[in-house]
């Protein structure tokens, strides 16, 4: 959440205003061998880059799957950032090439979400989320990663054994953009603090991807995980406030309207679709059986009879839920545009948990 009254914020805003007035940075196309700063352009979308001169190590397409939907291909790029003879960070980007019409099915996964995944918003046709983890940058991964490994070996660069990973994903009705930032190290007192800093950064970054989907990334101050909080906690929010300030200064908006708009900008949060009718879960099933048994006993005063009623209703409910879901799945596809399944993406390396063991880290199924 946005903190108020932070010392030095006025100076930061002044610097940001100066940056804004300088105009949007040039977006660099993802071509192998190029060095890019600021914003990377891929598949008609924009990806904000943490500070530094990033080298585009490899570009390519995700291997096509048999059920490839009508989005052309998934474009991939892997960028690396050097720190002397070492690889300081890797940035992995995936984006669809051709827009679709009905969005993507559960791009942030299904409930219950794992604890290290944070949902910004979710509805029938859009979603944004962030996640953290760790990865062993071994030989597993898509063709672009194999090319990157070759380039790293050729340059004699050192890859760490494991890297901390921040994942951000943003999907709307037409496109998706997924970015993974793999870092050699993240500032923090312990593993929990590092993961928290990483998750906070990934959450802010996912909001930036929202702008990248519509190619609206302008000049902004984006820092590294663990350092972002020292500068500003929401570059998107600050930029919107600065734009309103610029409108007021140009006379496009009255001071009173500007004040109201600034208040609206600070107060608004992306809302998620509420599911007012929770699906059949363990809690639903248990609570239904307790209710059925309790009510049956309160009327019949007969335990065996009540157990019989509750048990037979349990079996009938299971069948009914399955039949109802199947029927409504058909109806939904007939009355609403249906999202496409998210393409199965290959990512670099092998996910590991805190102890270095292989684990699950697959924000995109």
């Amino acid at each position, binding site marked *: 959440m946005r903190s108020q009254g932070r010392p030095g914020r006025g100076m930061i805003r002044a610097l940001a205003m100066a940056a804004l007035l300088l105009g949007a940075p040039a977006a660099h196309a993802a071509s192998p061998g190029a060095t890019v700063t600021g914003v990377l352009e891929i598949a008609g979308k924009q990806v904000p880059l943490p500070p530094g001169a990033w080298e585009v190590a490899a570009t390519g397409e995700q291997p096509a799957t048999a059920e490839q939907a009508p989005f052309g291909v998934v474009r991939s790029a892997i960028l690396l950032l050097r720190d002397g003879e070492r690889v300081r960070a890797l940035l992995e980007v995936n984006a669809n090439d051709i827009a679709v019409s009905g969005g993507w099915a559960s791009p942030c996964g299904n409930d219950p979400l794992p604890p290290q995944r944070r949902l910004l918003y979710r509805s029938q046709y859009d979603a944004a989320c962030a996640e953290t983890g760790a990865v062993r940058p071994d030989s597993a991964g898509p063709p672009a990663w194999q090319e990157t490994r070759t380039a790293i070996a050729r340059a004699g660069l050192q890859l760490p054994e494991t890297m901390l990973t921040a994942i951000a994903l943003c999907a709307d009705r037409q496109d998706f953009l997924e970015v993974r930032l793999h870092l050699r190290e993240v500032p923090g007192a312990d593993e929990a603090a590092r993961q928290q800093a990483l998750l906070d950064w990934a959450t802010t970054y996912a909001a930036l991807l929202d702008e990248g989907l519509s190619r609206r990334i302008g000049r902004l101050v984006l820092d590294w995980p663990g350092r972002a909080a020292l500068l500003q906690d929401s570059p998107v929010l600050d930029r919107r406030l600065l734009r309103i300030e610029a409108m007021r200064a140009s006379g496009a908006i009255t001071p009173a309207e500007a004040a109201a708009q600034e208040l609206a900008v600070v107060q608004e949060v992306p809302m998620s679709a509420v599911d*007012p009718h929770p699906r059949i879960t363990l809690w639903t099933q248990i609570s239904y059986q307790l209710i059925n048994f309790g009510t049956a006993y309160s009327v019949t005063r007969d335990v065996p009879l009540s157990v019989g009623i509750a048990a037979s209703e349990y079996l009938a409910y299971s069948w009914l839920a399955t039949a109802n879901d199947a029927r409504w799945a058909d109806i939904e596809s007939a009355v609403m545009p249906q999202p496409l399944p998210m393409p199965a993406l290959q990512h670099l390396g092998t996910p590991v948990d805190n102890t270095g063991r292989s684990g699950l880290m697959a924000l995109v199924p």
Partner: protein
Amino acid sequence: MRIVPLVVLLLVALAAGAARAQTGRVEEIGGKQVPLAEGAWIAAGDAAGRLEPAMPLGGYGIIRNQVLLRPSADGRGVAVMAEINVNELGVADGWGLAADCDPDFSAESGVLVRSGWDAACWFVATRDWDWTADMPPAWQQARTAAGRRGLALPDRTVTVGLRVANRRDVIDLRFHLAEAGDAAQREELAEWAAASLGLVAMGLTHGLPAGRALPGFDLGPAALARAGIVQERIVRLQALVAQGALTEEEARRQAAVIRAAAERELPWAYDPATVQGLRWFSMQTGLAATDAGLTYLWTEQSLQAAALTALQTGLRSVRTYLTNIVWTHVSNTATRSDAARVVDFAYGGRRPAAGDGQRPAP
């Protein structure tokens, strides 16, 4: 023989000129691309618009309202007026459908996407114009600009409107045609709108190729099919083949999927909240019927069965209600129903007082 190259050059120049005349234009407004229909347009009005009725939709800065005019062939009047409303800054919580997409207000309409945050709809309707009345500032400027150029403005138009919105942005694009009116022409305009809506949606995320305009209003169905969103996607598939990113076979397969999806496109989509609600109601009805049948089989007493069914249904509803309250408090994410809302702007024309296949203005 020297004349031959000159003739060829002349023909090439004419062809190029004709192509330019058909290119139309794409307006860059509020970080979005708004494609116009083919033709030569005159920018006539550009001012802050407003939501009508006013509603809190977040910090959008201002509503940009633009009016463009396309003169008639004889240059004495206005053939088409374009009316654009877009937000300047992206918001966090979405926009909505235009009320005119409701069939109660339009002769022809279609809602392709309807949800709490996404919208895509079109309509064809009649509009009356009172040029002496108070109008939004952009229209006042347009009225002055037309007067200065000696262009007669129409009193009644057939209006074709396109609305697309996502969580961040909205484009409301309306073309008011001075000469169109019978049912056949309206059906043609409806087909035009359905083919063009996807292109406007691409502009919402700044995804249109440079210079990509909307097709002309008078294209037949065959030409429309070559000018709409389906063809745009297929052209991109071909580009991927040319780049070597996609095999020809895969491109053909994907093109077939795109065409099939377009044919299946729903003219009238329901929103997810409505479908969820109906799904829940159908499940609850089934549960109550199951309760009644099973308790009667076990007890063989209709009174006991009825009492049990009523109790079970009531308690389950209370349980669901309480679970939702707990769920809302436990969840860190702010939520609202995935139900579409209506968001409108102050427009230039007015709905006819009555008749013409439309409900009168409220």
